């Protein structure tokens, strides 16, 4: 292979490697951000519904409560409504508690995205450092050697980044998770 072709082959390998690793990481960033958005949207919808339901439950009892406060005698319907209030509000509070756990999940997704973005910045920094060491007068053999080293360094960095970023949040909905006793 001629010197030109060897150089060309290394440049191609480097550009292809940068593109592949970069795209892979950015696809994951996109996936995590979409998942975060889904969880946030669902959390807001469910929390809004829960708060409205609690408001409604209390509102439905207000006449009965007012009657008691005025010293009146509660009707059978009043008794039934007031007796069931705790249970009904409790159900809505439980739903809200399940929904509020979006914060834990989205925090993990955001942290993962930040670490990946930081890793990508380091990745580009490596390119820059190696590039800075190539003087205009550097001969092509040395350039080939450097390009080989850069490609290797980037591949290792990309692997390390991927191994650091296990997917630990797969939830796309805020339904309560499985329970298993061993």
């Amino acid at each position, binding site marked *: 292979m001629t010197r030109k072709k060897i150089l060309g082959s290394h440049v191609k390998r480097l550009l292809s490697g940068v593109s592949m690793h970069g795209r892979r990481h950015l696809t994951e960033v996109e996936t995590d951000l979409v998942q975060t958005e889904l969880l946030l949207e669902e959390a807001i919808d469910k929390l809004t519904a829960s708060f409205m339901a609690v408001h409604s439950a209390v509102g439905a009892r207000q006449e009965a409560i007012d009657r008691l406060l005025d010293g009146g005698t509660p009707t059978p319907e009043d008794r039934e409504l007031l007796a069931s209030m705790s249970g009904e509000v409790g159900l809505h509070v*439980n739903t809200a*508690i*399940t929904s509020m756990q979006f*914060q834990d999940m989205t925090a993990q997704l955001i942290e993962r995205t930040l670490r990946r973005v930081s890793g990508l910045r380091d990745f580009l920094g490596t390119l820059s450092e190696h590039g800075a060491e190539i003087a205009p007068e550097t001969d092509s053999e040395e350039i080939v050697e450097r390009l080989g080293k850069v490609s290797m360094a980037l591949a290792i960095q990309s692997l390390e980044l991927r191994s650091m970023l296990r997917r630990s949040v797969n939830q796309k909905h805020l339904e*309560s998770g499985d329970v298993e006793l061993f």
Partner: protein
Amino acid sequence: MAKTILAVDDSSSLRQMVAFSLKAAGYNVVEAVDGQDGLDKAKQQTVDLVLTDQNMPKMDGLQLIKTLRTLPGYAKTPILMLTTESSDEMKNKGRAAGANGWLVKPFDPQRLIEVVKKVIG
């Protein structure tokens, strides 16, 4: 006398919700912010159940469980994982480490209470 649960999670909002749910059911709850804090608190006082997250700084859930199991008084204490992790691989690691159960987040408070009651009464 009310039973005591050690709730270990690096998310303060999650700890609040676990504590709120379990206290409403009559349990005492001690909170820990990570595995190391959980270990320190488990050494300071006897608890009836440990409920721990997996992914935490300083010491993760699996390491906490393995270490607790070596402590006198914790060989048989029920330990449940409460985590976003749901893979069979992680559950098997949890079982091997000494966990007695695996709850996937988000938890439903009523279901959490039912599981805790089943495990420690």
